[in-house]
């Protein structure tokens, strides 16, 4: 299935900003993190189509996954 992955802040270093990538059916957010060589504890926030999700969340073809390290401001 095709997933658009968007990376932010330090996750962009040596990776990319946005890419459409192929993943096996029923891949989870955690599987995609592994494929991107991002350790689970590095993850701050994952959003699918603008909604917060957990690493166990299973993706569906055509979704947009946004991944942020632990960041903040205000």
């Amino acid at each position, binding site marked *: 299935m095709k997933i658009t992955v968007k990376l*932010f*802040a330090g996750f962009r270093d040596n990776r990319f*900003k946005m890419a459409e990538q192929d993943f096996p059916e029923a891949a989870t957010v955690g599987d995609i993190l592994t494929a991107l060589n991002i350790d689970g504890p590095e993850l*701050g926030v994952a959003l699918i189509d603008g909604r*917060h999700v957990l690493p166990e969340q299973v993706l569906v073809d055509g979704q947009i996954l946004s991944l942020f*390290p*632990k*960041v*903040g401001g205000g």
Partner: protein
Amino acid sequence: MDKIFRVNMSDLTCKVEKVPAEFVTLGGRALTSTIVAAEVPPMCHPLGPNNKLVFAPGQLSGTAAAQSGRMSAGAKSPLTGTIKESNAGGTTAQQFAKMGIKAMIIEGQPKDNKWYRLHVTMDGVTFEDASELVGKQNFAVIDAMNAKYDTKIGVMTIGVPGENRLAAANISVKDPDQKIRSHGRGGLGAVMGSKMIKCITVDATGAGKVEIADPEKFRAAAKVFAKGMLDHPVTGEGLPIYGTNVLINILNEAGGLPTKNFKYGQCEHHDKVSGETMHDTIAGRPNGHTKHGCHAGCIIQCSQVYVDEKGEYITSGFEYETVWGLGINCLIEDLDDCARIDNAMDNIGIDSIEGAVLLAVAMEAGVLPWGDGKEGLRIMNEEIGKCTPIGRILGNGTGSVGQAFGLTRVPVVKNQGIPAYDPRSVKGIGITYATSTQGADHTAGYTIATNILKVGGFVDPLSKDGQVELSRNLQIATTAVDSTGMCIFVAFPCLDIPEVMPAMVDMIAARYGVDMSVDDFVGMGAKILKMEKEFNTAAGFTAEDDRLPEFFEYEPIPPHNAVWDFTPAEIDEVWNF
């Protein structure tokens, strides 16, 4: 021995008073709000002789505690009509604390209609003729004071909008690099102008160290606290690298980034003004600094020095809310243009949140085209900065612009502009905006931490569940933290690392030689928050004022098409403590 300076502008005297026993362990917001609540008649006109302007360094300001260099300023606000506390970095908090000035209370108004500069020394305050400074904007005032004294002189100043008592006027504070930090929100610059004080200079000659009752306990706690700041990924890594502006992209992805005067929750050009782009822009230019502290002793370094392509200074302290307001909400896509407007707002002395929010409403009114950064800059310098008739309409804030042009999408609560997080799609912050004693203020109970950033747990931003409790707890805790002199970002480690909050409380206990538990500390926050609420009630505010503007209820915001859907009774539950 700490003291209070009571400055009377009516007879140009300064009394040096003993610190009352009940004030000894207070500081910052706790002290300014206690004094304002006790001494300012709630129904007084904010620009009249009965309002008072109070400055107080935080409980830990001037000590070796990291992040503790913030000063609180308090008064009845001419923008909101409520009690107001606004804190800022710079150099004066640490100067006051080391000089033993627990608070400076400014009351009355001059009878001779002359402008003054207050000159603060260890002995008291003298009243200097300020006629040569009148009409100057802030950077020129700072240059003049540096030339008269030296660069160590502390400076708090107002620009021309403050002289003219415009409700968006702030009080600008010189920072360690001779640039500007601001007591931004709530129009305190207009209160200073109403007392005909153009500038306050602070000469700390003879100041000693802040007395610590139990130095050993203090040192141990300070170490744990500083380690917490460096260990937490947000304060140790995210903020220093990207600054607060890292939030542009995350709010955009979450659909909570108010765009084109709160019409949309996402913005197509978001990455042009994002924290990531700003970092790369600054790092790629000569003399740019991606890290910078607003006061000596800051180890987070979330600020920056923003320069142009040639390496010439444009601005510093270029925060998320300002970049959002100009770059996203006004659709000004050129980050350099946004930086120049930020610098202009520092220079003329208006709150950069109110200034950006009112500019978007002015764009909706047709005063200037959407996205026109050059015209936005001209309006700041030539209209608001010079207090022309249209400049006065704008410089009196977002609500003033909305009323003058007959608009309904006017994002204010208690007449203060709503900042950078849409309350329909980040519902916890909507509860804070609605109920804060300060008018719409994200920092008063920063639910973004838990709604968006997953710090201190997670409460779904689009659901109503848990938002009232979240906002209530954060408003209480923030009132306490605002009293310490600490920057608000200490909250991130406090929420996630168990030993950080007790270490902060231990530092306060060791500073004053008292017993204080975390519960005592939070209890102080609750007490002060209720005191502020009682002031507002006595000033004529009711539960009906704790509401968001109506358009949030009938204009769904894309992409989630969320509306504001709390009932009045649900909102009022915030005060159930």
